[in-house]
């Protein structure tokens, strides 16, 4: 294999692994804030079980958040290095644009979340409720801000605007146009909603699993309701935003849409292909199953709307096969999410929010959907990222022109294997630890109490041991 393909595979492996975790933590930060606020507002009330349920939920999901956050951080660090090791030409050409955007992400968002995460996770009893709530709020805000900057850059790479080119080097003419480039508002909204949905199904799925196992009785029914409600509210919005994002893509990146729809020749009244195998060799589709005119209706909102075919963009279009299937995986998952959340919410409401009245099969289905957000999110990113090929900055800079020439294919191959093995192992570990934590939440809380009692002065407040000695300078 050549160095370009290997470098792309390595980078793809890394960003695929990375996005799994921010997509949870962006939404989870806000969910934790919600749990905390719910606890604060119920703790002095008469319903002690409710208050304890929200606190249990907060504590359990904080641990999930901490683990997720750690995986996001370590894979994000890898990414910041791979920009240089894999695509040195990228920063040399567009460094004046990408640099400040990445710089602002690190300076404003990374430090904000990392700085206050410690207080949020371990600060109970060390700071006031108000300061702790503020820390939680800042962590949630930091993760979202991080998404803002990164998606500004990513969208600029898809629909570049606001720049000028002098001797092959890109310079900024208008920062507003660079950040708020044509696809940014759609992509950012789409991603934030995707994160909310991923979270919602994780909340519902793990809680359903806990209910099946008969653990976390106080928190799981509440969290299940939160998850289903959140999913039910977000999914229709996401479908509308996704449609708008698609129309925006048709306008700015028609080759991507042609690949998604498997359209080779420009046509009016294009059919929607439910299934096909787009073949790059023969430049046609095999085994196609189609619904007449529907693609034109969806994309142009006209029966005889024109969709440009891939043949109009020879040597300038992405490989259709992965796009075709990734897009269908995303949309299919979205529709399944719509059905699951609405039906689930309705049934749960009909059961008067009493989880024990829900059929076990339904809980099992929610549990099976725990990581459905991952599938939809990753498929969506494949559509948008592979769909940008063969360019790294759409229409302007080809990926092949910025790839590193230093490492040999063997070196990239070795490190790729290393990363892949590590990532697979970590995904397995992550999922199995989530499952284990979900099954043993009370036990976990007890362990935590013991840990608190055993921690030294200056690390966490000890409820048991009196603090004494001058272990500290102050």
């Amino acid at each position, binding site marked *: 294999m050549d160095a370009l393909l290997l470098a792309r595979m390595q980078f793809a492996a890394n960003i695929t692994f990375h996005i799994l975790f921010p997509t949870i933590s962006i939404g989870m930060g806000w969910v934790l804030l919600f749990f905390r606020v719910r606890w604060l507002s119920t703790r002095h009330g008469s319903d002690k079980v409710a208050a304890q349920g929200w606190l249990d939920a907060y504590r359990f999901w904080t641990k999930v958040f901490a683990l997720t956050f750690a995986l996001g951080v370590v*894979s994000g660090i890898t990414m910041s290095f791979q920009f240089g090791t894999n695509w040195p030409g990228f*920063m040399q050409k567009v460094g004046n644009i990408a*640099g400040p955007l990445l710089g602002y992400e690190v300076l404003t968002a990374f430090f904000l979340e990392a700085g206050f995460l410690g207080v949020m996770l371990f600060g109970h009893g060390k700071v006031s409720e108000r300061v702790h709530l503020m820390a939680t709020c800042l962590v949630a805000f930091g993760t979202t801000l991080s998404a803002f900057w990164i998606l500004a850059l990513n969208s600029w790479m898809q629909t570049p605007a606001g720049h000028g080119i002098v001797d092959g080097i890109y310079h900024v003419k208008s920062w507003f146009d660079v950040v708020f480039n044509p696809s940014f508002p759609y992509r950012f909204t789409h991603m934030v909603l995707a994160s909310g949905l991923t979270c919602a199904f994780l909340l519902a799925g793990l809680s359903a699993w806990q209910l099946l196992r008969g653990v976390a009785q106080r928190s799981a029914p509440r969290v299940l309701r939160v998850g289903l409600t959140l999913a039910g509210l977000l999914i229709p919005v996401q479908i509308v935003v996704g449609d708008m994002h698609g129309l925006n893509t048709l306008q700015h990146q028609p080759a991507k849409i042609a690949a998604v729809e498997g359209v080779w020749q420009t046509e009016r009244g294009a059919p929607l292909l439910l299934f096909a195998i787009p073949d790059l060799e023969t430049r046609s589709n095999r085994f196609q199953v189609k619904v007449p005119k529907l693609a034109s209706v969806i994309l142009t909102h006209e029966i005889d709307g024109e969709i440009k075919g891939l043949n109009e963009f020879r040597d300038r279009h992405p490989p259709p096969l992965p796009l075709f299937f990734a897009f269908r995986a995303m949309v299919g998952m979205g529709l399944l999410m719509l059905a699951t959340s609405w039906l689930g919410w309705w049934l749960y409401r009909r059961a008067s929010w009493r989880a024990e009245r829900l059929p076990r099969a339904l809980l099992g289905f929610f549990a099976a959907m725990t990581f459905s957000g991952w599938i939809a999110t990753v498929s969506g990113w494949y559509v948008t990222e592979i769909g940008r090929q063969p360019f790294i900055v759409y229409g302007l800079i080809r990926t092949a022109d910025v790839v590193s020439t230093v490492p040999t294919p063997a070196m990239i191959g070795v490190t790729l294997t290393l990363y892949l093995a*590590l990532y697979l192992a970590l995904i397995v570990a992550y999922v199995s630890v989530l499952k284990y934590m979900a099954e043993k939440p009370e036990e976990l809380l007890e362990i935590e109490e013991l840990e608190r009692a055993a921690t030294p002065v*200056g690390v966490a407040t000890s409820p048991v041991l009196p603090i004494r000695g001058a272990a500290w300078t102050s």
Partner: protein
Amino acid sequence: MTFDATLPVVFMALMGVSMLVYVVSDGYDLGVGMLMHRATDAEKDVMIASIGPFWDANETWLVLGVGILLIAFPQAHGLVLGELYLPVALMLVGLTLRGVAFDFRVKAKDAHKNTWDRLFFAGSTLAAVAQGWMLGRYVSGFGTGWNYPLFAAAIAGALPMAYVLMGATWLIMKTEGELQGRAVEWARMAWAPMVGGLVLISMATPWVSATVRQRWFALPEIIALSAIPLMCGVSLLAVRSLLGTRHVRGPVCWLPFTLLILVFVLGFLGLAYSIYPYVVLDRLTVWQAASSPEALKVILLGACISVPAIAGYTVFSYRVFRGKAAELKYA
């Protein structure tokens, strides 16, 4: 110098400071990680708890340092990371293992806890050794010849020792009782190899690099410069003698760690003096490698606002976890 010409120098300084803060702060984290296998299970939990609230923010300084290299000196970023392709990959694997093992160990089944502890140790060691190798290669300008890899290998051995010493003195400051006593022993053990490595490197650097040789061994600069090794030597001797007294477990428990920070700062100043104005020694100056002044100004504006804020809440976080807020009620 015009303002535009000053900008790359400002960013070089900012990058240097980020890297220094990273080496000092994640240095003690990695050091604690490398000492893990010597501790009992109960002590391991305490050791982890002592770095728990900080490691994440500490690692962010590496992202900032590399980020500045990437965004302010894109030419150098490609060159440096291309040269360091394999050690960078190994360091990243190490940092990944360390970072996740940290979180997994308290959440996984008891049966798996030992595995994560071992991975925590392995990840910390791998990252430290890879960083040492990278530092060695970078300081010598990625030279080729038999002596250069040897030099890098020496630093790859010495830097982990420096981290271990940092980690041990951090534990002396942060813990008490039996663990604190062991931390003193660990610090004593790490002291000699660390100092030996430092002396070796100080002698070898001018040997492998003519540029560095000329910088240091010229009159009258050498007189002013001798303050750096002298102060380093005094600080290190003070650390060693402190480790021999029982006061180190009492009111001055913070002193060895603080003195080591001073050593790192001095070492950093010496290094900066050796290298400036190059980003990559003898190959690329800060001005050759820099992004356009327009881009740098935009980033500088952000840095001027956010760096003080970062410093502010870093101090806040360290204060919170200093036990000062201990009287507050337990949530």
